[in-house]
């Protein structure tokens, strides 16, 4: 087994969908997470606050500097993550497909190095 990170890619600056759409997405995500648990693929999932809530720590001459804001400004931001366990990329992509349909957003699937415990 291998760990894969599903990243929810959210466009920066887009207005949030109306509440009824958000509610629908939330419901779909609950179903998705439930499915992951039942399949034994679930490790962790969660949504993130926006990049304006970020703080960056940088090593500097033996000390660490603290700055407000995200590490890099981009057109997309990490909206949330889902950490799963899957036997191979095909299985991970299948979960990614479901995540994309549930969130209505692009999903990036990336493998962790090393093996996951079975």
């Amino acid at each position, binding site marked *: 087994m291998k760990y894969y990170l599903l990243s929810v890619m959210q466009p920066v600056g887009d207005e949030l969908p109306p509440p009824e759409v958000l509610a629908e997405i939330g419901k779909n995500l609950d179903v998705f997470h439930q499915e992951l648990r039942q399949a034994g693929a679930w490790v962790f999932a969660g949504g993130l606050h926006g990049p304006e809530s970020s703080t960056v720590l940088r090593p500097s001459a033996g000390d660490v500097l603290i700055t407000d804001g995200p590490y890099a400004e981009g057109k997309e931001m990490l909206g949330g993550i889902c950490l799963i366990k899957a036997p*191979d990329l*095909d299985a991970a992509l299948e979960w990614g497909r479901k995540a994309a349909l549930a969130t209505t957003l692009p999903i990036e*699937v990336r493998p962790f190095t090393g093996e996951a415990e079975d």
Partner: protein
Amino acid sequence: MTAPDIEDVFRAEYGRAVAVLVRFLGDIDLAEEAVQDAFTTAVRRWPETGVPPSPAGWIITTARNRAIDRLRREAKRDERHAEAALLHAPDAPPEEGPVRDERLRLIFTCCHPALAPQAQVALTLRLLGGLTTTRIAHAFLVPEPTMAQRLVRAKAKIRDARIPYRVPRDADLPDRLNGVLAVVYLIFNEGYGGSPELCTEAVRLGRLLAELMPDEPEVTGLLALMLLVESRRPAREDADGALVPLPEQDRDRWDRDLVAEGQALVRRCLRRNQPGPYQIQAAIQAVHSDAPTAEATDWRQVLQLYDQLMAQAPSPVVALNRAVAVAEVEGARVALDLVDALDLDGYHVFHAVRADLLRRLGRDTEAVRAYEAALALTASPAERAWLDRRRRPHTLSASRTATSASAPPSPKDVTRPASST
């Protein structure tokens, strides 16, 4: 046995051997090294001992033993890594029996949609065709280091993201098979533009797929399509290297064996009656192959088949090729209206077809402009030579009466599927 003979065995058996070893070792690089080791040994030994009764079996066994030796040696240096590699290996050593399936697994891995299309093409040629990186780079006019890096990255992604060696389950098979066929056809079309080696390789891959998946009608269709187009290679260029379009080709120079094989496959598809885009395109080529002269072409049937293709896989390129058939059945005027409605301004064949229709309607000035637009958009020397000749005034008037001169400049473009444009 001489070196060229071993080269033949290499080209014929490399993919088979690599596929088995990949399955055994779980690692493409190790598998390639082992198979290359085995061929190096063969080059040394076979001239003395003679060719073994089963060259493929000998190569696979030797490669496997080499790989095991290597892993044992490395185990002393780095025990954990080597053990991990051996853990991936199935218990029973692979023999020749299940070999067919191994190649099928590997081709689905090479053409995995998580790999970039260019990488899919390069990997397929490298691992299943046994082409060297140098030859692949040369065929695609890409610097060798670029191609080498493309292959390294693709292999690393297969390993790191764990792209499986597996024939997809039934639910995913149609989509994934389309991807494989698109890669093979892309290789064929790339070769059509000037690297015959790629066409040969694509036909060989097509035959392999047809052998491994005899019940997939589109696999048969693609093979038939490639064979019928390939059969015209000897007639496709004149002594000066200029392109000879289908209507002007000397049909006696077509490869009759390939024509017969392609047509037999098309008939098999017709009997099966589950038409798909490749089969329909093959059927269109079969109609052309049936005609003893260009004038005898059954254009009504060609048009019907294009109508069917438009219903299944509509695209502007298919619409353009359909218009060529319309010109023959309903006249150049009707065809020109259809062509003018298409948004294909950046495609040289669009301008070449327009030019030809304008020429037939006596609109010479516009025709010349259209030929020039086509010339500006193609780099192929053979196509350029043909277009350049066409746009000259005496050619324009001389060919106005020739009813058969209206085909697009290359069969490739007639046959290009919606999926690969």
